[in-house]
């Protein structure tokens, strides 16, 4: 590592490629380290519990429980890679869900003999309302961050309180119920090709988001802005516009997660999403993203979502108190960030 200056120069043409390859291997290894951890978890639980854990129905369950978080983690990954952070996602999810539920109830009409006259229309309107309202919160976050130049951590801490508080004001603290049952049968638990519809939604969103991030100009600008926003600005990239779009995407995904959550439980859960932000951020970081922006993938974030989901499910099946899951996720987060830190300092020493 402490090669003399002269040797460094004469060595450069021959030495660089091998060093580059070593770094690539290192990057790939640590990048896939969490993937291996996921595989190990699955193997361990399978060995311990056999077909109780390793069963299609159980995996279906795991994925269904992870579908909300997956949507939130996809949005968070874009934001974090773009150098921003959104703490308000759980509150925005709740607020959107409340508005969505109100719209569903209002449009579906008064049930006659248990049958809602306009259930499908109501559900469709509720989905649109929830996503649009979520996107509106995202727009507010984005505009505040870029116009007022307040760090997104602070802005979204503020909107976290505002969105949750307003949701409580609107509902007077009571969850919205009385939704048509079709929202559960037709959406929340609807099986399509062996998987619940919310899982398909989460998978398709994650797949498209991953491809978009990796392959398109928009994705590249997201990395560029998060990596060095001044360089991006000098290159003619509209940095503020990019940030606002990322926040809007995040908000819309929170709204979508909110309405899918509504569809599964046929009730809002105003008090049930206070830790969503940290869970989503942890997933993105476990998946190899840098909290300082510029690095990360949707694939990594998806693995970062599945590790807690598998752990939670497996621990219940094994019979360990599920509270240990919280402990384990905390530990995994720290280990992942430590790995990231080591990797980073090794690269910088080059």
């Amino acid at each position, binding site marked *: 590592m402490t090669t003399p200056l002269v040797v460094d120069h004469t060595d450069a043409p021959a030495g660089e490629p091998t060093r580059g390859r070593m770094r*690539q291997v290192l990057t790939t290894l640590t990048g896939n380290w969490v993937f291996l951890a996921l595989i190990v978890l699955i193997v361990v639980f399978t060995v311990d519990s056999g077909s109780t854990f390793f069963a299609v129905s159980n995996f279906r369950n795991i994925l269904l429980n992870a579908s909300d978080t997956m949507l939130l983690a996809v949005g968070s990954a874009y934001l974090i890679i773009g150098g921003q952070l959104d703490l308000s996602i759980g509150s925005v999810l709740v607020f959107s869900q409340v508005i969505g539920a109100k719209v569903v109830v209002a449009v579906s009409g008064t049930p006659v003999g248990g049958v809602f006259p306009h259930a499908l229309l109501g559900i469709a309107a509720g989905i649109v309302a929830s996503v649009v309202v979520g996107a509106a919160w995202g727009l507010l976050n984005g505009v505040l961050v870029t116009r007022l130049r307040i760090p997104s951590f602070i802005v979204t801490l503020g909107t976290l309180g505002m969105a949750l508080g307003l949701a409580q004001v609107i509902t007077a603290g009571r969850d919205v119920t009385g939704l048509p049952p079709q929202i559960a049968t037709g959406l929340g638990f609807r099986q399509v090709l062996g998987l619940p519809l919310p899982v398909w939604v989460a998978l398709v969103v994650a797949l498209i988001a991953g491809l978009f991030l990796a*392959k398109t100009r928009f994705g*590249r600008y997201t990395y560029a802005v998060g990596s060095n926003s001044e*360089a991006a600005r*000098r*290159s003619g*990239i509209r940095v503020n516009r990019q940030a606002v779009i990322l926040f809007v995407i995040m908000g819309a995904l929170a709204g979508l997660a909110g309405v899918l959550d509504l569809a599964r439980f046929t009730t809002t859960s105003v008090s049930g999403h206070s830790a969503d932000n940290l869970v989503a951020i942890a997933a993105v970081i476990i998946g190899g993203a*840098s909290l300082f922006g510029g690095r990360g993938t949707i694939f990594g974030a998806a693995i970062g979502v599945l590790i807690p989901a598998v752990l939670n499910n497996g621990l219940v099946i094994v019979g360990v108190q599920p509270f240990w899951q919280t402990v384990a996720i905390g530990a995994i987060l720290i280990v992942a960030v430590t790995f990231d830190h080591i990797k980073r300092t090794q690269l910088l020493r080059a």
Partner: protein
Amino acid sequence: MNDIRLAGKESEPPPRDDRTRAPVLRAVAVSKRFGHVSALREVTLEVAPGEVLALMGDNGAGKSTLVKILSGAQQPDEGQLYLGDEPITLGSPHAARVLGIETVYQDLALADDLSAAANLFLGREHVRRGPLGRLGVLDVKRMRREAEAEIDNLGAHVPDYRSPVRMFSGGQRQSVAIARAAIWARHVIIMDEPTAALGLVQTEQVAQLIKRTRDRGIAVIVVSHSVPFVFDVADRIAVLRLGTTSAVLSPKTATHDDIVAAITGASVRTAAAR
């Protein structure tokens, strides 16, 4: 406009001190004040295609302000810029780039997490043909191919076109930054202390890059504190002092002492008279 570049593409270096060439970029009587402080006072400066103009001066002499004005980052209070014979107004660095004036900033301005190829094409990406291109899908292979070709053409060395430039040494990163400017500059490249943090060998590489760029018919304005470096690369040396041009010297005739004198203000007249 393209013929400027073609004219310089002939391999023979443009004749030095050839004052017959029409300047490509001119600043005429440019002034800039910050509050009560006059950073620049009626500075007039020009650079011709295929010429390397060095800007020297002590800290606070006005070099940075002048560079910012020429690169579009700041606007002059008075005076006019011309590109060829056209009066131009540079409202932003982007506007300058659109006109073919590229700047290599002292802090490099690379996106460290992107590859060399991605940095070269940052803000000017190629997209695929057809419907995928309309979705914004990048033509990564084409960009990498062109990046390699251009960098080879410049004689710069980039170890790896896939790894993030964060992994590169200071000299390699500087090569990427200069190559990026050189590839896109149609008329002028402005370099703000390109060798400030570099060792001897790397400084020599930067000098080579500057000469190759000059040979392509691009005008190069380079800010530097290093007298040997300036003697090596420059065709003319403009020395700023207290916001005005204190001397314009030829490296052929001027000595190290003349430059120091012009920078510090000691016996300016004798230095300028040579």
